[in-house]
């Protein structure tokens, strides 16, 4: 494996909240490789956004307590000064946000917002920067870019706006693009266009992408590698193929099973994950997932599972206390269409203690 472009090591981010400390990110580690796309998937409140904001140091202002390391090109981003980080933002690492209408300044023309992204990091004349702005708009597929560069964000449609955001992020050809729910606010058809755009740009510019989403469909489309987050922790990471074919964590199983399938029987019920996401102020003891896990055992409430590699694939890590072969068999059952309760019953007739 080549050296990863970005390596997050045991990242913890805490906020002082009204009811107590919020453990938003509770020991998270993952890697991003150049030219590949990592998809981080999880529910809201899983800590996926916070961890990526923290990468760019954007949580520092909110009084976050950060520990752990984020290694990027040999530097620990957690330890960098604000000034040094600023040089990386929008330059080496860029970010695209969820709602392009609120994420673009409503009172400045799009061209101005693009040129300032360029001139923040490069000594170029206004004229040259403007040329670049038009170039960028063209790059992201906006028609008539020379005219539209003088328009305001509200004069663009939702999809176009997101293209503008992407153009802005790409202004300085970053090596890593972090996209936080980039298509969630868009129509389904537009979604597809945006994702296609991002893939094309990745090929053309050779950059790594971290795409954060709760939408497994997007993950399926874009991700080369996947990290599954739950309640501030990574519960599983592997290549996309592995995660869809042979997931090893009960939460991942729940996610996959809750996708409606066109090719399934019409009367089949969706199988949601029971329960609600936990509080990050008072997270469950031991395995964070145990209150909702159909296969929970008593000791799971006490022991924190660590991310460990799976036997037959060193690139696949999972944080679960169940035995490996138990997991395989459970997945087999689920894959055959059994409910979790049935699967459990089938796998443990003698109830492993």
């Amino acid at each position, binding site marked *: 494996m080549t050296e990863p472009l970005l390596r997050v090591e045991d990242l913890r981010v805490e906020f002082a909240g009204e009811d107590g400390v919020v453990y938003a990110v509770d020991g998270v580690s993952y890697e991003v490789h150049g030219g590949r796309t990592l998809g981080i998937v999880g529910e809201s409140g899983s800590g996926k956004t916070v961890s990526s904001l923290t990468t760019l140091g954007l949580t520092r202002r909110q009084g976050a307590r950060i520990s752990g390391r984020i290694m990027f090109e040999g530097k620990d981003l957690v330890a960098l000064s604000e000034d040094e980080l600023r040089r990386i933002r929008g330059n080496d690492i860029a970010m695209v946000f969820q*709602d392009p209408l609120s994420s673009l300044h*409503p009172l400045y023309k799009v061209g101005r917002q693009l040129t300032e992204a360029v001139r923040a990091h490069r000594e170029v004349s206004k004229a040259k920067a403007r040329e670049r702005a038009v170039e960028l708009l063209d790059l992201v597929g906006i028609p008539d870019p020379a005219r539209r560069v003088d328009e305001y964000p509200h004069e663009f449609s939702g999809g176009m706006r997101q293209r503008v955001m992407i153009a802005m992020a790409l202004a300085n050809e970053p090596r890593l693009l972090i996209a936080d729910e980039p298509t969630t606010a868009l129509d389904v058809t537009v979604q597809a266009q945006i994702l296609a755009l991002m893939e094309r740009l990745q090929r053309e510019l050779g950059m790594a992408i971290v795409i954060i989403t709760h939408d497994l469909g997007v993950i399926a489309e874009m991700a080369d590698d996947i990290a599954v987050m739950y309640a501030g922790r990574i519960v599983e990471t592997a290549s996309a193929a592995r995660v869809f074919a042979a997931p090893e964590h009960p939460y991942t199983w729940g996610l996959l099973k809750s996708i409606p399938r066109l090719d399934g029987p019409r009367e089949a019920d969706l199988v949601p994950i029971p329960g609600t996401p936990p509080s990050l102020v008072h997270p469950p003891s031991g395995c964070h997932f145990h209150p909702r896990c159909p296969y929970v055992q008593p000791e799971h409430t006490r022991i924190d599972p660590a991310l460990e590699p799976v036997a037959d694939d060193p690139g696949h890590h999972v944080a679960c206390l169940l035995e490996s072969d138990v997991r395989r068999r459970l997945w087999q059952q689920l894959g055959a269409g059994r409910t979790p309760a049935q699967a459990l019953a089938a796998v443990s007739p003698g109830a492993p203690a």
Partner: protein
Amino acid sequence: MIRYVIRRLLWGVALLIIVAALTFVLFRVLPTGNPAVLRAGKDPQPRLIKEIEAVLGLNKPLIVQFWDYLKEVFLHFNLGYSYYSSESVRSLIAERLPETLSLTIGAAVLWLVGGLSVGIVSALRRHSFLDRATMGTSLVLISAPEFWLGLIFLYLFSSDIGRFKIFPGAGSYVGITSDPWKWFTSLIMPWVVLAAGSAAVYARLMRGSLSETMREDYIRTARAKGLPERQVVRQGVRAAINPLFTLFGLEVGVLLGGTVLVETVFNIPGIGRLAYSAITSSDFPIIQGTVLLAALFIILANIVVDVVYAYLDPRVRYS
């Protein structure tokens, strides 16, 4: 845009007519002094009062009086003559307009600059000692009556009766053309007094508006682009300032109609004082003239604010 402005101006004229009508009715119907009676002095034989009413034109039916008045105002720009000095209301107002303008504009600049800068600093350093100190002071300044504040300043700083003889005292105002330095120094205290309350209001508003704005998503984007913090703040201020601008425009419009209390305390012969003394002596033509002027300023201010706001906030242009 031009059509929009013209339409607003026409509405403005209609509004002025309504205001004139209201003033007309108010002062002739409600219990204030009857100017004929006031002029009749102490021997109000009914015959004398009737004669004076005839001379002042008060004996014609209300509608006729009003119609005559409208014709004079809108066709000849003649606002009538004072019942007392017989001077033309138009020239009385024109004489005093420079004073009111001097006072209002100077104070406006002061409170805008002062209020906004304090507000910005407070927003960026919320809950710091500086923030609490300025917000506390602003509360005091907002609550302080202008009259009282003016007197305090005079008793402390005026060169004739103050403890520390720094600024010229009440009554030392001169026009800018006769003595620019004296004009300027005599206005410093009135400016501060007039600006104090407003500056405080703006500081608080700016603090709130900017605090909110800095939490917006586009500020996060600006930071994520790697912009220096100063530039990020400027983007925030640019967005935060819009609601304040509306307020500013309207406030200046209102003040141009007269700032009675400050003019009285510092003895600046502006429109406010003219209006006040006209009211106490029931000098209807002056009252009507000053009310119309005040209404005109507010109407114009509204139009200006709307037009400029469309310029300031491009999103508004489509509606």
